[in-house]
């Protein structure tokens, strides 16, 4: 009888190719996702050394970071550098024979949205991508994390990664979420509680009743931001919801293979008594709709709070908090609900899935953007966009005054034409509120899709529960 193992332990053990005496492992990678920004130098490295992609059938590429989200982009990308990167990915995908979803493909979208959507992401897998939000795929009970470009080249050439095992961390969310509180509020509240370095050196397993009650979309939102808490990856044990989501997807196993896979996946859970190096427990009832006030994802407060005084922070954080407030143009003691917004962005790999759009549309239905506020909805994939149009969600956004865009990373990192102007303040469903992230001088407040929708209607940060009261 082996010692009890965590879910992370099990997936890790299943993928060790070789282990050195000092504990350094060669880990096998089941799926390698590739996008245009962090891969050109890696493919160039392969060419220079005459190496091939070892497993092109396990490698999936899509352009997402650079692509405009407006019509006509299949034939023309005005920014020359962006165009060169997208063309380089076109060429690399063709030359190395990997799976590819070009801009012209209806299935194109943000890499972390199309992986699950197409069934590339399956429980128990190891999944990497040159992108820190790869943690998203952990929602399926896959070990998924971001890597640098040198490691992208390593995985392309060898289908393995040189790794040392991280420690185990458990984040348990007990009880049930209250109305108006979402997966985004869970993940932001966890970061607020543990800090952006709270998970460093660890792989987080999220568990507890509130996590079990989340949809797959919600679980992806939670795992997506594991990296903002410093963790290498976030994981959620697969269950019936997971299997239901995966079943029938284009690259999911079928027939006898499905049955065999299912039997395997049902063994993917943390054994009773397994050891965690760090445990954080939060009561779901204590989580309120939250927003960020500063320029670090740990700068999280309930919407009912006020802007904090930098002097209230210890050590180096006091200086950082002051710098954040200067950048964000806020004063200590100001009510968060008094902060006016200029823009609202709904989308990203954190909140660009169909459920996110349904939730935002439910708040926006029959309502309008506040005067002077610009709103943008960017579906996470071409298929999400199609589905939202079929469900009538797109019309709700358009009627409310939002721009209804094509799929891509869009404003979340402003590498494409979608950006904030200096000083412009945005209620955003994305994942990073760093200085300049959405455009130089742009001010980002992170929140859930329903909270962003609420801010869009009132023109200032708003407790969505008040608007839900009106609806009831």
């Amino acid at each position, binding site marked *: 009888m082996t010692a009890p193992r965590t879910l992370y332990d099990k997936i890790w053990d299943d993928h060790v*190719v070789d282990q050195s005496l000092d504990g350094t492992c060669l880990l096998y990678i089941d799926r390698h996702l590739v996008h245009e920004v962090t891969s*050109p130098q890696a493919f160039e490295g392969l060419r220079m050394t005459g190496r091939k992609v070892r497993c092109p059938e396990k490698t999936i590429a899509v352009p997402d970071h650079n692509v405009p989200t407006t019509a006509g982009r299949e034939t023309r990308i005005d920014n020359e550098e962006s165009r060169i990167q997208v063309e*380089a990915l076109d060429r690399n995908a063709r030359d190395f024979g990997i799976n590819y979803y070009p801009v012209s493909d209806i299935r194109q979208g943000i890499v972390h949205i199309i992986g699950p959507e197409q069934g590339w992401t399956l429980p128990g897998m190891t999944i990497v991508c040159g992108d820190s939000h790869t943690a998203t795929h952990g929602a399926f009970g896959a070990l998924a994390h971001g890597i640098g470009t040198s490691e992208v080249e390593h995985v392309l050439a060898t289908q393995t990664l040189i790794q040392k095992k991280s420690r185990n961390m458990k984040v348990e969310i007990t009880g049930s979420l209250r109305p108006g509180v979402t997966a985004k509020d869970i993940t932001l509240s966890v970061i607020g509680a543990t800090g952006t370095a709270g998970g460093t050196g660890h792989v987080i397993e999220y568990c507890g009743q509130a996590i079990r009650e989340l949809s797959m979309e919600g679980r992806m939102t939670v795992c997506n931001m594991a990296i903002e808490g410093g963790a290498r990856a976030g994981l959620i044990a697969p269950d019936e919801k997971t299997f239901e989501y995966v079943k029938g997807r284009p690259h999911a196993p079928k027939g006898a293979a499905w049955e065999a896979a299912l039997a395997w996946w049902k063994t993917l859970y943390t054994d009773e008594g397994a050891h965690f190096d760090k445990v954080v427990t939060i009561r779901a009832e204590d989580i309120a709709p939250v927003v960020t006030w500063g320029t670090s994802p740990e700068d999280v407060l309930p919407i009912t709070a006020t802007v904090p005084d930098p002097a209230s922070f210890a050590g180096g954080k006091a200086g950082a908090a002051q710098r954040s407030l200067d950048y964000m143009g806020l004063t200590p003691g100001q009510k968060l609900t008094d902060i006016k917004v200029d823009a609202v962005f709904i989308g990203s790999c954190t909140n660009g899935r169909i459920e996110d759009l349904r939730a935002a549309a439910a708040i926006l239905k029959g309502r309008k953007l506040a005067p002077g506020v610009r709103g943008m909805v960017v579906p996470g994939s071409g298929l999400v966009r199609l589905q939202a149009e079929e469900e009538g969600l797109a019309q709700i956004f358009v009627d409310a005054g939002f721009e209804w865009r094509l799929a891509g990373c869009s404003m979340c990192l402003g590498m494409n034409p979608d950006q904030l102007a200096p000083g412009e303040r945005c209620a955003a469903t994305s994942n990073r509120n760093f200085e300049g992230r959405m455009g*130089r001088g742009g001010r980002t407040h992170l929140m859930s899709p329903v909270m962003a929708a609420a801010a869009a209607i009132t023109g200032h940060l708003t407790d969505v529960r008040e608007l839900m009261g009106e609806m009831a």
Partner: protein
Amino acid sequence: MGDVFLFFGVFQHEGRRAHRIFGYLRVEERRILGRNPQPDPLIGLPWPHPHTEGDHWPDNNTVYIGWGATFAPAHEAFIAAPMPLVNIDTDMIIPKQFLKTIKRTGLGVNLFDEMRYTPDGQEIPDFVLNRPPYRQAQILVAGDNFGCGSSREHAPWALLDFGIRCVISTSFADIFYNNCFKNGILPVVLPPEAVDVLMKDAEKGANARITVDLAAQTVTASDGRVFAFEVDPFKKHCLLNGLDDIGLTLEKAAAIDTFETRAAQSRPWI
């Protein structure tokens, strides 16, 4: 292209003279300055280069550009730049608009771009790396959780291209930490008390240089205080010897083959 240049030198240490490799370069781009030079072949290079002066280049003069690493000599002290801010993220280190390159080189000029320049491209004189002694800094002493955020390897590429060879902090974000080793940058984790001492040294500019010795795993402050640091033995070995990870892994191709055969039976749906 793809050639690797090794740079040798004769070093003398405690009376013994020996040839040592002190760096390597994998060529990504070649700019021929001699016969039929391309127009303005060196424009865009971020560092001052003697070949940009004058137009009488000898026939064979060629500049090779690429990424590589040098091995910080153990007994030389370097200027360290102080950046006491906590949570310095990768968007600060290299903002997204500079991720559109398909090369590894040339990013040093945009390191900390939005903190270093005004929107119209003028240097901000107060920013640490714009101040005279720190323009030559080779070490960065930074606040907690340096390099948090995205996986962009452009962050270490930009640091390296500027000339930073070592970053000292109490903690680093995971992916950034790994990326440093792949690019010949040494991230050093030290306790807060040690970082405080080194931060004070850094604030004194060229008058208080810091010595980093990877082989001995020590950092020496200007007053001679020595701080030992931990580093993964494999990462240290690769950094000291400039080893190519992929080459090392391909030596284990048989083990990868075996794993794949076994996995094809136990998990055929992958």
